[in-house]
Protein backbone atom coordinates (compact mmCIF):
# COMPACT_ATOMS: atom_id res chain seq x y z
CA UNK A 1 0.00 0.00 0.00
CA UNK A 2 1.40 3.39 -1.01
CA UNK A 3 -1.10 5.39 1.07
CA UNK A 4 -0.81 8.52 -1.06
CA UNK A 5 -3.59 11.10 -1.03
CA UNK A 6 -4.44 12.52 -4.42
CA UNK A 7 -6.62 15.54 -5.26
CA UNK A 8 -8.31 15.65 -8.66
CA UNK A 9 -9.56 19.13 -9.59
CA UNK A 10 -11.79 19.07 -12.67
CA UNK A 11 -15.15 20.72 -13.44
CA UNK A 12 -16.32 18.08 -15.92
CA UNK A 13 -17.85 15.12 -14.02
CA UNK A 14 -17.14 12.81 -16.97
CA UNK A 15 -13.49 13.78 -17.11
CA UNK A 16 -13.21 13.55 -13.32
CA UNK A 17 -14.65 10.05 -13.42
CA UNK A 18 -12.18 9.04 -16.12
CA UNK A 19 -9.18 10.31 -14.13
CA UNK A 20 -10.39 8.80 -10.85
CA UNK A 21 -11.10 5.47 -12.55
CA UNK A 22 -7.58 5.46 -13.99
CA UNK A 23 -5.91 6.40 -10.68
CA UNK A 24 -7.81 3.71 -8.78
CA UNK A 25 -5.75 1.20 -10.70
CA UNK A 26 -2.72 2.25 -8.66
CA UNK A 27 -3.10 0.41 -5.37
CA UNK A 28 -3.36 2.44 -2.23
CA UNK A 29 -4.21 5.82 -3.73
CA UNK A 30 -6.85 7.71 -1.79
CA UNK A 31 -8.57 10.03 -4.21
CA UNK A 32 -10.53 13.17 -3.38
CA UNK A 33 -12.42 15.16 -6.05
CA UNK A 34 -12.90 18.92 -6.40
CA UNK A 35 -15.13 20.79 -8.89
CA UNK A 36 -12.96 23.88 -9.40
CA UNK A 37 -9.98 25.82 -8.07
CA UNK A 38 -11.77 27.23 -5.02
CA UNK A 39 -13.15 23.83 -4.05
CA UNK A 40 -9.65 22.45 -4.62
CA UNK A 41 -8.02 25.00 -2.28
CA UNK A 42 -10.63 24.30 0.38
CA UNK A 43 -9.83 20.61 0.28
CA UNK A 44 -6.08 21.25 0.21
CA UNK A 45 -6.31 23.28 3.40
CA UNK A 46 -8.50 20.70 5.14
CA UNK A 47 -6.03 17.84 4.72
CA UNK A 48 -2.56 17.18 3.32
CA UNK A 49 -2.30 15.78 -0.21
CA UNK A 50 0.69 14.08 -1.86
CA UNK A 51 -0.30 14.72 -5.49
CA UNK A 52 -2.56 17.18 -7.32
CA UNK A 53 -4.06 16.75 -10.78
CA UNK A 54 -5.87 19.76 -12.17
CA UNK A 55 -7.61 21.01 -15.27
CA UNK A 56 -6.97 24.59 -16.47
CA UNK A 57 -10.29 25.81 -17.84
CA UNK A 58 -12.66 25.79 -14.88
CA UNK A 59 -15.29 28.20 -13.53
CA UNK A 60 -14.75 30.35 -10.40
CA UNK A 61 -10.99 29.70 -10.24
CA UNK A 62 -8.95 28.24 -13.09
CA UNK A 63 -6.16 25.70 -12.82
CA UNK A 64 -3.30 28.14 -13.37
CA UNK A 65 -4.41 30.31 -10.47
CA UNK A 66 -4.72 27.18 -8.36
CA UNK A 67 -1.18 26.03 -9.30
CA UNK A 68 0.20 29.46 -8.42
CA UNK A 69 -1.58 29.56 -5.03
CA UNK A 70 -0.58 26.00 -4.17
CA UNK A 71 3.08 26.76 -4.90
CA UNK A 72 2.97 29.78 -2.59
CA UNK A 73 1.73 27.59 0.26
CA UNK A 74 4.74 26.29 2.26
CA UNK A 75 2.85 23.04 2.92
CA UNK A 76 2.67 22.33 -0.80
CA UNK A 77 5.86 23.86 -2.20
CA UNK A 78 7.21 20.42 -3.18
CA UNK A 79 3.97 18.57 -3.89
CA UNK A 80 3.83 17.26 -7.48
CA UNK A 81 1.21 18.95 -9.65
CA UNK A 82 0.02 17.53 -12.98
CA UNK A 83 -1.98 19.77 -15.30
CA UNK A 84 -4.39 17.98 -17.67
CA UNK A 85 -5.89 20.33 -20.25
CA UNK A 86 -7.22 20.87 -23.75
CA UNK A 87 -4.79 23.80 -24.17
CA UNK A 88 -2.09 22.44 -26.45
CA UNK A 89 -0.12 25.62 -27.24
CA UNK A 90 3.55 25.69 -26.18
CA UNK A 91 3.09 29.01 -24.38
CA UNK A 92 0.29 27.51 -22.23
CA UNK A 93 2.57 24.63 -21.28
CA UNK A 94 5.46 26.97 -20.48
CA UNK A 95 3.22 29.21 -18.40
CA UNK A 96 1.89 26.30 -16.34
CA UNK A 97 5.38 24.89 -15.78
CA UNK A 98 6.72 28.36 -14.87
CA UNK A 99 3.96 28.72 -12.26
CA UNK A 100 5.08 25.48 -10.66
CA UNK A 101 3.34 22.56 -12.38
CA UNK A 102 5.56 19.49 -12.66
CA UNK A 103 3.93 17.91 -15.70
CA UNK A 104 1.60 19.10 -18.44
CA UNK A 105 -0.64 16.59 -20.23
CA UNK A 106 -2.94 17.57 -23.07
CA UNK A 107 -6.38 16.16 -23.83
CA UNK A 108 -7.91 14.06 -25.31
CA UNK A 109 -7.39 11.93 -22.26
CA UNK A 110 -4.78 9.17 -22.56
CA UNK A 111 -5.04 6.96 -19.51
CA UNK A 112 -1.65 5.31 -20.12
CA UNK A 113 0.06 8.69 -20.28
CA UNK A 114 -1.59 9.86 -17.04
CA UNK A 115 -0.67 6.64 -15.21
CA UNK A 116 2.93 6.73 -16.48
CA UNK A 117 3.32 10.35 -15.38
CA UNK A 118 1.81 9.70 -11.94
CA UNK A 119 4.00 6.63 -11.42
CA UNK A 120 7.11 8.56 -12.47
CA UNK A 121 6.40 11.50 -10.14
CA UNK A 122 5.38 9.35 -7.18
CA UNK A 123 7.95 6.59 -7.80
CA UNK A 124 5.32 3.84 -7.52
Amino acid at each position, binding site marked *: MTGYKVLVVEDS*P*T*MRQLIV*FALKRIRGFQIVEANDGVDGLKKLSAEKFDLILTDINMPIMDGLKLVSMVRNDPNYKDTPIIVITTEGAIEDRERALALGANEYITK*PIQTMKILETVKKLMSV
Partner: protein
Amino acid sequence: MSNHDDEKDVAGRADEFLQVFKKGAEFTQDLLKENERLRFRVVQLEETLKEKGHEVVVESPDAIELQKKIEALEHEKQEILGQIKQVEEENQNFANRYIEIEEENNMLANLYIASYQLHSTLDFKEVLQIILEIVINLIGAEEFAILLLDEKTNRLEPVASEGVATSELPSIAVGEGIIGEAVNSGENYFIDSMEGYQRDFEKPIVCIPLKIKEHVIGVIAIYTLLTQKDEFTNVDYELFTLLAGHAATAVFSSRLYSDSERKLSTIQGFIDLLTK
Protein backbone atom coordinates in the same frame (compact mmCIF):
# COMPACT_ATOMS: atom_id res chain seq x y z
CA MET B 1 111.49 -52.35 -44.95
CA SER B 2 113.58 -50.75 -42.28
CA ASN B 3 112.42 -49.89 -38.78
CA HIS B 4 112.51 -46.25 -39.65
CA ASP B 5 110.16 -46.78 -42.58
CA ASP B 6 107.78 -48.79 -40.35
CA GLU B 7 107.64 -46.06 -37.79
CA LYS B 8 106.93 -43.50 -40.47
CA ASP B 9 104.11 -45.64 -41.88
CA VAL B 10 102.46 -46.06 -38.42
CA ALA B 11 102.69 -42.36 -37.77
CA GLY B 12 101.03 -41.59 -41.11
CA ARG B 13 98.22 -44.03 -40.39
CA ALA B 14 97.72 -42.61 -36.94
CA ASP B 15 97.56 -39.18 -38.41
CA GLU B 16 95.08 -40.38 -41.00
CA PHE B 17 92.96 -42.02 -38.26
CA LEU B 18 93.00 -38.89 -36.22
CA GLN B 19 91.83 -36.92 -39.23
CA VAL B 20 88.93 -39.35 -39.81
CA PHE B 21 88.06 -39.36 -36.12
CA LYS B 22 88.09 -35.58 -36.07
CA LYS B 23 85.76 -35.42 -39.08
CA GLY B 24 83.46 -38.01 -37.42
CA ALA B 25 83.32 -35.90 -34.28
CA GLU B 26 82.52 -32.80 -36.28
CA PHE B 27 79.76 -34.69 -38.16
CA THR B 28 78.27 -35.92 -34.86
CA GLN B 29 78.32 -32.38 -33.52
CA ASP B 30 76.48 -31.23 -36.65
CA LEU B 31 73.89 -34.01 -36.28
CA LEU B 32 73.24 -33.10 -32.63
CA LYS B 33 72.83 -29.44 -33.58
CA GLU B 34 70.41 -30.35 -36.37
CA ASN B 35 68.45 -32.61 -33.99
CA GLU B 36 68.21 -29.78 -31.46
CA ARG B 37 67.08 -27.38 -34.18
CA LEU B 38 64.38 -29.78 -35.42
CA ARG B 39 63.06 -30.45 -31.90
CA PHE B 40 62.82 -26.73 -31.31
CA ARG B 41 61.00 -26.35 -34.63
CA VAL B 42 58.45 -29.09 -33.65
CA VAL B 43 57.72 -27.33 -30.36
CA GLN B 44 57.31 -24.06 -32.24
CA LEU B 45 54.87 -25.62 -34.71
CA GLU B 46 52.80 -27.25 -31.92
CA GLU B 47 52.46 -23.91 -30.17
CA THR B 48 51.45 -22.19 -33.41
CA LEU B 49 48.78 -24.86 -34.01
CA LYS B 50 47.42 -24.41 -30.47
CA GLU B 51 47.30 -20.65 -30.90
CA LYS B 52 45.32 -21.02 -34.13
CA GLY B 53 42.83 -23.29 -32.39
CA HIS B 54 43.86 -26.46 -34.08
CA GLU B 55 43.91 -29.46 -31.89
CA VAL B 56 47.11 -31.41 -31.70
CA VAL B 57 45.89 -34.85 -32.60
CA VAL B 58 46.29 -37.01 -29.64
CA GLU B 59 45.10 -40.50 -30.03
CA SER B 60 44.90 -41.58 -26.37
CA PRO B 61 41.45 -43.01 -25.25
CA ASP B 62 41.09 -40.37 -22.52
CA ALA B 63 41.67 -37.65 -25.05
CA ILE B 64 39.07 -39.15 -27.39
CA GLU B 65 36.55 -39.40 -24.51
CA LEU B 66 37.23 -35.77 -23.54
CA GLN B 67 36.82 -34.72 -27.14
CA LYS B 68 33.40 -36.41 -27.26
CA LYS B 69 32.32 -34.74 -24.01
CA ILE B 70 33.38 -31.36 -25.35
CA GLU B 71 31.35 -31.93 -28.52
CA ALA B 72 28.27 -32.99 -26.47
CA LEU B 73 28.62 -29.92 -24.25
CA GLU B 74 28.98 -27.69 -27.30
CA HIS B 75 25.78 -29.17 -28.71
CA GLU B 76 23.97 -28.71 -25.38
CA LYS B 77 25.20 -25.12 -25.21
CA GLN B 78 23.81 -24.39 -28.67
CA GLU B 79 20.43 -25.91 -27.67
CA ILE B 80 20.29 -23.82 -24.47
CA LEU B 81 21.19 -20.67 -26.40
CA GLY B 82 18.37 -21.46 -28.84
CA GLN B 83 15.94 -21.95 -25.97
CA ILE B 84 17.03 -18.67 -24.34
CA LYS B 85 16.44 -16.89 -27.65
CA GLN B 86 12.99 -18.46 -27.92
CA VAL B 87 12.12 -17.46 -24.32
CA GLU B 88 13.32 -13.90 -24.99
CA GLU B 89 11.12 -13.71 -28.08
CA GLU B 90 8.16 -15.04 -26.08
CA ASN B 91 8.86 -12.47 -23.36
CA GLN B 92 8.86 -9.71 -25.95
CA ASN B 93 5.57 -11.00 -27.37
CA PHE B 94 4.07 -11.12 -23.87
CA ALA B 95 5.29 -7.56 -23.18
CA ASN B 96 3.73 -6.32 -26.43
CA ARG B 97 0.52 -8.20 -25.69
CA TYR B 98 0.46 -6.72 -22.18
CA ILE B 99 0.66 -3.19 -23.62
CA GLU B 100 -2.12 -4.01 -26.10
CA ILE B 101 -4.31 -5.40 -23.31
CA GLU B 102 -3.58 -2.35 -21.17
CA GLU B 103 -4.66 -0.09 -24.03
CA GLU B 104 -7.80 -2.15 -24.64
CA ASN B 105 -8.53 -2.12 -20.93
CA ASN B 106 -8.17 1.66 -20.83
CA MET B 107 -10.35 2.01 -23.89
CA LEU B 108 -13.05 -0.18 -22.34
CA ALA B 109 -12.85 1.80 -19.11
CA ASN B 110 -13.29 5.05 -21.06
CA LEU B 111 -16.20 3.61 -23.02
CA TYR B 112 -17.79 2.32 -19.82
CA ILE B 113 -17.54 5.71 -18.12
CA ALA B 114 -18.79 7.56 -21.19
CA SER B 115 -21.77 5.21 -21.45
CA TYR B 116 -22.40 5.34 -17.68
CA GLN B 117 -22.38 9.14 -17.72
CA LEU B 118 -24.72 9.30 -20.72
CA HIS B 119 -27.34 7.24 -18.91
CA SER B 120 -26.81 8.82 -15.50
CA THR B 121 -29.46 11.50 -15.98
CA LEU B 122 -32.84 12.14 -17.61
CA ASP B 123 -32.25 15.87 -17.81
CA PHE B 124 -32.08 16.80 -21.50
CA LYS B 125 -29.61 19.68 -21.02
CA GLU B 126 -27.35 17.53 -18.85
CA VAL B 127 -27.32 14.79 -21.48
CA LEU B 128 -26.27 17.33 -24.12
CA GLN B 129 -23.54 18.61 -21.77
CA ILE B 130 -22.25 15.07 -21.21
CA ILE B 131 -22.08 14.47 -24.97
CA LEU B 132 -20.09 17.71 -25.34
CA GLU B 133 -17.70 16.62 -22.55
CA ILE B 134 -17.15 13.21 -24.14
CA VAL B 135 -16.42 14.71 -27.55
CA ILE B 136 -13.98 17.29 -26.09
CA ASN B 137 -12.19 15.11 -23.56
CA LEU B 138 -12.19 11.73 -25.22
CA ILE B 139 -12.16 12.53 -28.91
CA GLY B 140 -10.32 15.86 -28.76
CA ALA B 141 -12.66 17.98 -30.88
CA GLU B 142 -12.40 21.76 -30.60
CA GLU B 143 -15.36 23.03 -32.62
CA PHE B 144 -18.41 20.86 -33.05
CA ALA B 145 -22.19 20.81 -32.72
CA ILE B 146 -25.11 18.56 -31.89
CA LEU B 147 -28.02 18.91 -34.31
CA LEU B 148 -31.35 17.19 -33.67
CA LEU B 149 -33.99 16.27 -36.20
CA ASP B 150 -37.24 18.21 -36.09
CA GLU B 151 -39.64 15.67 -37.57
CA LYS B 152 -42.27 18.33 -38.28
CA THR B 153 -40.00 20.40 -40.53
CA ASN B 154 -37.67 17.52 -41.51
CA ARG B 155 -34.71 19.74 -40.70
CA LEU B 156 -31.73 19.35 -38.39
CA GLU B 157 -31.64 22.09 -35.75
CA PRO B 158 -28.48 22.90 -33.73
CA VAL B 159 -29.15 22.38 -29.99
CA ALA B 160 -25.65 22.49 -28.44
CA SER B 161 -22.14 23.33 -29.54
CA GLU B 162 -18.56 23.85 -28.41
CA GLY B 163 -16.08 26.38 -29.79
CA VAL B 164 -18.79 28.15 -31.81
CA ALA B 165 -22.04 29.81 -30.75
CA THR B 166 -25.09 27.59 -31.36
CA SER B 167 -26.90 30.62 -32.81
CA GLU B 168 -24.23 30.90 -35.56
CA LEU B 169 -24.95 27.41 -36.84
CA PRO B 170 -27.40 26.89 -39.71
CA SER B 171 -30.32 24.48 -39.68
CA ILE B 172 -29.94 21.87 -42.38
CA ALA B 173 -32.58 20.07 -44.42
CA VAL B 174 -32.51 16.27 -44.44
CA GLY B 175 -30.67 15.07 -47.53
CA GLU B 176 -28.86 18.41 -47.95
CA GLY B 177 -25.06 18.28 -48.07
CA ILE B 178 -22.84 16.01 -45.98
CA ILE B 179 -24.83 16.46 -42.76
CA GLY B 180 -28.28 16.06 -44.33
CA GLU B 181 -27.08 13.02 -46.29
CA ALA B 182 -25.77 11.36 -43.11
CA VAL B 183 -29.36 11.39 -41.79
CA ASN B 184 -30.58 9.60 -44.90
CA SER B 185 -27.78 7.04 -45.06
CA GLY B 186 -27.30 6.56 -41.32
CA GLU B 187 -23.57 6.12 -42.04
CA ASN B 188 -20.69 7.88 -40.24
CA TYR B 189 -18.85 10.39 -42.43
CA PHE B 190 -15.10 11.08 -42.19
CA ILE B 191 -13.30 13.56 -44.41
CA ASP B 192 -10.68 11.92 -46.69
CA SER B 193 -7.92 14.38 -45.86
CA MET B 194 -7.78 17.28 -43.41
CA GLU B 195 -5.00 18.99 -45.38
CA GLY B 196 -6.06 22.47 -46.41
CA TYR B 197 -9.45 22.09 -44.73
CA GLN B 198 -11.23 25.34 -43.92
CA ARG B 199 -14.01 25.26 -41.33
CA ASP B 200 -17.37 25.07 -43.03
CA PHE B 201 -20.56 24.50 -40.99
CA GLU B 202 -22.08 22.54 -43.85
CA LYS B 203 -18.96 20.49 -44.54
CA PRO B 204 -17.70 19.02 -41.27
CA ILE B 205 -14.65 16.76 -40.99
CA VAL B 206 -16.74 14.16 -39.17
CA CYS B 207 -20.49 13.61 -39.04
CA ILE B 208 -21.95 10.95 -36.75
CA PRO B 209 -25.66 10.16 -37.04
CA LEU B 210 -27.32 9.55 -33.66
CA LYS B 211 -29.34 6.39 -34.23
CA ILE B 212 -31.87 4.35 -32.30
CA LYS B 213 -31.75 1.10 -34.27
CA GLU B 214 -32.05 2.46 -37.82
CA HIS B 215 -33.95 5.61 -36.86
CA VAL B 216 -31.73 8.73 -36.97
CA ILE B 217 -32.70 11.40 -34.42
CA GLY B 218 -29.84 13.82 -35.04
CA VAL B 219 -26.10 14.17 -35.75
CA ILE B 220 -22.84 15.24 -34.17
CA ALA B 221 -20.89 17.38 -36.62
CA ILE B 222 -17.19 18.01 -35.87
CA TYR B 223 -15.57 21.01 -37.61
CA THR B 224 -12.10 21.21 -36.03
CA LEU B 225 -9.89 19.15 -33.71
CA LEU B 226 -7.63 20.34 -30.88
CA THR B 227 -4.22 21.50 -32.16
CA GLN B 228 -2.46 18.54 -30.55
CA LYS B 229 -4.88 16.08 -32.16
CA ASP B 230 -3.91 15.42 -35.77
CA GLU B 231 -5.57 12.11 -36.53
CA PHE B 232 -8.23 9.70 -35.30
CA THR B 233 -7.29 6.57 -33.38
CA ASN B 234 -9.08 3.23 -33.01
CA VAL B 235 -10.54 4.43 -29.70
CA ASP B 236 -12.11 7.36 -31.52
CA TYR B 237 -13.92 5.07 -33.96
CA GLU B 238 -15.16 2.95 -31.02
CA LEU B 239 -16.34 6.12 -29.32
CA PHE B 240 -18.12 7.29 -32.44
CA THR B 241 -19.97 3.97 -32.56
CA LEU B 242 -20.83 4.27 -28.88
CA LEU B 243 -22.00 7.83 -29.32
CA ALA B 244 -24.15 6.91 -32.30
CA GLY B 245 -26.14 4.47 -30.16
CA HIS B 246 -25.91 5.49 -26.49
CA ALA B 247 -26.06 9.24 -27.02
CA ALA B 248 -29.11 8.79 -29.23
CA THR B 249 -31.03 6.78 -26.62
CA ALA B 250 -29.93 9.14 -23.85
CA VAL B 251 -31.04 12.20 -25.85
CA PHE B 252 -34.31 10.54 -26.91
CA SER B 253 -35.30 9.29 -23.45
CA SER B 254 -34.35 12.53 -21.70
CA ARG B 255 -36.35 14.54 -24.23
CA LEU B 256 -39.37 12.25 -23.75
CA TYR B 257 -38.98 12.53 -20.00
CA SER B 258 -38.74 16.33 -20.14
CA ASP B 259 -41.84 16.49 -22.39
CA SER B 260 -43.82 14.18 -20.12
CA GLU B 261 -42.74 16.13 -17.06
CA ARG B 262 -43.89 19.33 -18.73
CA LYS B 263 -47.23 17.78 -19.72
CA LEU B 264 -47.68 16.33 -16.25
CA SER B 265 -47.06 19.72 -14.73
CA THR B 266 -49.64 21.30 -17.08
CA ILE B 267 -52.24 18.60 -16.31
CA GLN B 268 -51.53 18.96 -12.61
CA GLY B 269 -52.13 22.71 -12.98
CA PHE B 270 -55.52 22.05 -14.63
CA ILE B 271 -56.47 19.51 -11.98
CA ASP B 272 -55.54 22.00 -9.27
CA LEU B 273 -57.69 24.67 -10.94
CA LEU B 274 -60.66 22.32 -11.29
CA THR B 275 -60.52 20.99 -7.75
CA LYS B 276 -60.13 24.36 -6.05
